[in-house]
């Protein structure tokens, strides 16, 4: 069921919040794709009863009476939050993250926390301590990552909305691989408070749903100015859901010259060409742009993200919270053993890369250079947005791939993020939407907008979805 229908059913009292929750929990319990890490049945039922008993208070809230699943990176008060890691497998945060708090206040009911790559490091959901997630479109396929559980949850029709986070593509890539809509907002639009940090200068939370309508309503709930996050911006006074009704005429949409040169599979390119004609059919003008700098984003990202990760993850030392080894001989050994036991291979690798690029003697050669490349990417976007309103490109290089395929060639996996990383480096908003079905698997198209243009991105995606059926495809 799509989000709009589900919310309307609650508002018209044709189904109670409790009934919606019971139905969803049934699906969570029979899930065979390993989508969830923990389900909170008792808490969900009691919240649903509270909402039913206070119908008038919640009726007009953006997410009224709708069950939601949160990525297990968002802290939930007194409810286990693992971040996909052994390090936090029993961690019960003392507070709710702002995102969870906002969603609770907006009338949604959290059913479960979704599986994810460990500490959000991965593009296939295979680095989770709790095992890989299967793609609803094929059990042997990955759902993408790191928010693989949240994307699969929507594609498998378990909830109609879920939350994710995107540091290098972790919302958009799984959205594309699972055939749903997912958005990374402008850096700073959604508070990062209580969202376990990976790369603080790029991490950003965002919505998943089948369509732009669900994403708009969820973003209305998620975004807020937050004094607890010093990088959180003052959001525009705007209702994303209402702005979907605004007329859009004659937008200039940038399409990248020679994009096939980036190693994109022909299935993706075919869908891309088809959706370009849809955009033209809606009255928009396509304009070729040069973006040859795009590919250097990868090098910059794989320096900056590990650098910030090695710093952020230094807090896991077995002293204040999380896993503690029982094998330690002294304090130094306590740190060493705890971290060796608590972190998985991919996280260890990224900590080592980060430690190396930040260590004396290597800082200028790596970290400083990467920050300069980041400036080049940002400047290039600014130059492009003088000429066009939006940029359109595919989300990924390829469709959902088989499990274990990429672990043999990690650089290939890293390169998968080629088309998503630039928006993170520049802090720009971007949305991925389903734009075709090839070999019975979905493909994704991506629109990147200027800073705080979420309303425009959601609106144009909604307009595309009014004249196409790609977002209605089911596995």
């Amino acid at each position: 069921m799509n989000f709009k229908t589900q919310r309307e059913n609650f508002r018209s009292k044709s189904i109670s919040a409790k009934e919606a929750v019971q139905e969803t929990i049934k699906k969570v319990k029979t899930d065979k794709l390993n989508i969830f890490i923990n389900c909170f049945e008792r808490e969900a039922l009691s919240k649903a009863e509270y909402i039913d008993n206070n119908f008038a208070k919640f009726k007009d809230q953006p997410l009224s009476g709708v069950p939601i699943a949160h990525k297990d990176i968002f802290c939930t008060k007194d409810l286990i939050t693992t971040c996909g890691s052994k390090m936090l497998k029993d961690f019960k945060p003392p507070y709710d993250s702002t995102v969870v708090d906002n969603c609770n206040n907006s009338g949604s009911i959290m059913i479960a926390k979704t599986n994810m790559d460990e500490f959000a490091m991965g593009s296939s959901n295979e680095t989770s301590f709790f095992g890989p997630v299967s793609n609803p479109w094929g059990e042997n396929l990955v759902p993408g990552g790191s928010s693989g559980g949240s994307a699969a949850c929507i594609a498998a029709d378990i909830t109609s909305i879920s939350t994710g986070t995107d540091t290098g593509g972790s919302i958009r890539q799984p959205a594309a691989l699972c055939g749903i809509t997912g958005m990374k907002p402008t850096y700073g639009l959604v508070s990062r408070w209580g969202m376990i940090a990976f790369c603080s200068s790029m991490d950003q939370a965002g919505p998943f749903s089948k369509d732009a309508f669900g994403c708009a309503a969820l973003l209305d709930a998620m975004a807020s100015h937050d004094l607890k996050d010093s990088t959180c911006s003052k959001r525009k006074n705007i209702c994303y859901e209402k702005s979907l009704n605004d007329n859009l005429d004659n937008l200039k949409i940038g399409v990248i010259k020679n994009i096939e040169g980036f190693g994109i599979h022909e299935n993706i390119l075919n869908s891309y060409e088809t959706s370009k004609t849809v955009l033209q059919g809606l009255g928009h003008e396509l304009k070729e742009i040069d973006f040859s700098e795009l590919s250097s984003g990868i090098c910059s990202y794989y320096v900056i993200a590990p650098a910030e990760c090695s710093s952020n993850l230094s807090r896991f030392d077995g002293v204040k919270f999380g896993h503690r080894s029982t094998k330690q001989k002294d304090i130094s050994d306590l740190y060493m053993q705890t971290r060796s036991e608590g972190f998985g291979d991919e996280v260890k690798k990224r900590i080592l890369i980060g430690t190396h690029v930040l260590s004396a003697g290597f800082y200028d050669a790596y970290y400083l250079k990467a920050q300069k490349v980041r400036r080049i990417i940002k400047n290039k976007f600014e130059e492009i947005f003088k000429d066009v309103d939006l940029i359109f490109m595919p989300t990924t290089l390829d469709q959902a791939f088989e499990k274990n395929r990429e672990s043999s060639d990690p650089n290939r996996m890293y390169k998968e993020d080629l088309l998503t990383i630039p928006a993170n480096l520049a802090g720009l908003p971007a949305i991925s939407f389903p734009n075709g079905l090839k070999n019975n698997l979905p493909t994704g198209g991506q629109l990147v907008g200027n800073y705080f243009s979420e309303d425009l991105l959601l609106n144009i995606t909604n307009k595309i979805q009014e004249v196409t059926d790609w977002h209605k495809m089911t596995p």
Partner: protein
Amino acid sequence: MDKIELKNLLFLARIGIEDKEHPKIIEKLTNTFDLIDEMNELDLDEVQPLNNPLELNNVSREDSDNDRNAKKNFLENSPESDEDYFIVPKIIE
């Protein structure tokens, strides 16, 4: 990267990896640095580094005590604590 450099790195990051695994780790790290080194082909001399994507204003708030920072909550999450203290192995003999 050689074995001595790796050992130093593992110590800095406080991560232990068995000696027999070292060649595999070195290979993985070298692979990633090959990818990163593509950066060296760019002319970056005149470019200013960028450490945050947005020119944001700092958000400030009153520096007051609140229930979020209740000591009890945080000590409860510790693997081992005693009254007001986190317990760790003895540091000085």
